[in-house]
């Protein structure tokens, strides 16, 4: 579903991300971890077509993000680390905006919104202006907007920041359900426990390079993921 080959990103003369190769299969949850500034968000923004890159290819569902960005974005949903959304709209207006962009049937979209909004407990606030939302509520709205059009690939950047424990639990449950239905998930986080419990495969990025990648059970065979992660950082 997601195939990254020899990805490089430069910021001026700084070589920020150096030759990343990754694959995320259909129905797989892939955890991407690393310290602040390691290059996680850079790669994620490139996967979503937000950030251009100089070398390499990123293919989503067989399509190249640079050659066919619209084709890729049609099957993709992105949840950023900071939920900056149109504050002059109400919650429902924003969700309707996303539904229209993805040409989702209004009745199906309405049912989906109703179900998810009730689950994430923001149904009563859907008619309120986004300006009045807290950070967590905005985050929930962005999650809803990503789930309502049933993407084939879900890309999340630090999705649990600002979520209350119940919403965080619900999101993890949703991620599992989506994978069972064939959706692939690529996400970054600093919450290693979540990665350990949720992911099928993991990659650790440091200073723009993948220093270890593999199945979760291979990582946690002899020690917890936290110990492995800190150990690798220490070695470096």
């Amino acid at each position: 579903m997601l195939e990254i080959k020899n990805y490089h990103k430069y910021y001026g003369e700084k070589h920020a991300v150096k030759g990343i190769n990754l694959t995320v299969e259909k129905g797989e949850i892939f955890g991407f971890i690393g310290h602040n500034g390691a290059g996680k968000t850079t790669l994620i923004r490139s996967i979503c077509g937000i950030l251009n890159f100089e070398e390499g290819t990123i293919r989503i569902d067989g399509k190249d993000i640079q050659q066919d960005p619209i084709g890729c974005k049609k099957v993709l949903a992105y949840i950023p680390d900071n939920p900056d959304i149109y504050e002059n709209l109400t919650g429902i207006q924003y969700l309707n905006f996303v539904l229209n962009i993805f040409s989702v049937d209004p009745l199906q979209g309405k049912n989906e919104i109703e179900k998810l909004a009730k689950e994430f407990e923001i149904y009563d606030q859907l008619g309120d202006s986004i300006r009045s939302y807290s950070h967590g509520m905005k985050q929930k709205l962005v999650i809803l907007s990503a789930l309502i059009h049933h993407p084939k690939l879900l890309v999340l950047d630090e999705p649990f920041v600002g979520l209350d424990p119940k919403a965080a639990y619900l999101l993890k449950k949703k991620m599992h359900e989506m994978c069972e239905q064939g959706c692939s998930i690529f996400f970054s986080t600093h919450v290693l426990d979540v990665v350990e419990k949720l992911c099928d495969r993991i990659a650790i990025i440091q200073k723009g390079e993948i220093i270890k990648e593999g199945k979760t059970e291979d990582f946690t065979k002899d020690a917890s993921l936290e110990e492995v992660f800190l150990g690798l950082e220490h070695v470096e």
Partner: protein
Amino acid sequence: MLNKLGFCLRLQFRIMLNQSAGRLGNRKKRTKNGFVVLIAGLLIYLSVYYSLMLLNSFPPGYESLLILLMSLAGVSMVFFVSIQLAQGTLFAFRDFDFLMALPVSRAVIMISKIVSFLLICYGYCGFIFLPAAVLYGVHVSAGFSTYLIVGVGFLFLPLIPMALSSILALAIRILAGRSRWQSLVSNLMSFALFLIVFAGSMALSFSSEGLIAIEPDRFLSQLTRFLPFVGWYAKAVIETNYMALAGSVLMSAGAFGLFVALFNKTFIRVNSNLQEGYHVRNYRLKRLKRQGIFQTLFKKELKKFLSNFMYVMNMAIGQILLAVGAIYVLLNKDEFLTLTASLPSLQAQEVTSSIFTLVVALILFFGLMSNTAAVSLSLEGKNFWILRSLPIRPEECFMAKVAVNAVVIILPSWITLLLSAVAFDFTIWMILEALSVIVALGFFVGMLGLMINLLFPRLDFDREILVIKQSAASFIAVLGGVLLGIACFYLLFQGAARIEPLLLVGGVGLGFVLLDLILWRLLTSLGVRLFNKL
């Protein structure tokens, strides 16, 4: 207390300075500072040039009119600008939470906000009035006392208009409440206020007699009657009258003191309430509407435009003036006919043709100044990731932004044209041709503005007013629009003496259609590349 006030003031100044510089590297910062100095220099030059032009046009003994006119202009400028600037500076400012969490009193927070707001007002008032005052002083060989009066009185001159406009801005905010249509209600009320003041100043103006014919003494007595603090200040400067200065200073200081005392009681409560948005009780999800991508983006864009009063007033003020002017002309047909008859280049034509040329020229002039698209991309700001991550082609995004600009121009311009057609009996061919030219104009302005914004984007900002008023794209689009408008005016007026109006306007329309095609081609090639690099 004084230490804390000093800290808050320094903080506000630093924020103001950082807003101008943005988050740029040293080299870019230097370039930007150079650009700011260049613009400031240009504005001062324009102010000096305008004052000098006025001064030279007055007959001997009428020089004091410059002080009267420019002090009035400075005060009016502060009044109009601060109605807009109060939002975001005195109310609904971004650092409210941060300041409230500091161990400083509420009065200190309020005073620091008022002082920083006052500094902006001094900037606007000073740019208009001070060059004129210096020119006047040089012209009449004024002594030190005159300059002293100018300086001291100037410190108090913007206080009353600033306080008055802040009260009005606050009243609008309170009346708009926290309804679902808060922005719309607030915008409509601000717009209504603008119209009332505009109509009032037109009614009070001395335009029928012409500026040159106004006697300074009569002007001064009128000014002292309606705006005593300005009248006394002008009198003090002209006659080196310290009593008049004291009167002006005391009145301004007293009124401002009263404002601060009253404002102190509501400042925190109002700002605290403004932090809350619109809430619905017992929300029930209704049927959703299905719309195409263009329609969806267009609606989003239009909502963005209409929900921001500063956006409307800065980028579409020309259209508001045009529509108001059309209604005025319809009610004062004879005045317009006299004006048209006095223009030498239009005298070669019959009356209807002359007026048709003039109306089209005015529509083009105001249309070219109304560039909403020039900041529309920058205004995406932190929300830009939405457009980039959703399956939206850049061309679809461009089309929505251009279409909103076109609608903003086409609707008022069509109304103006049709009202003029009714008043002055334009032929059906004139109407159809002008309607088509307006459509071509609307798309031209939108595409040109968008291209400018793509070349000079500014996505990193904390207040939208910085993009609307201070970005390079906004400056280039507005100034470029004025210059293009003047060029169109010149072309139509010069051409009118030689070419038949229908043919002339048709030629201009064709020119816009050709430019539309070229710009669209440019947008879909270079524009898309620039968009993808953002």
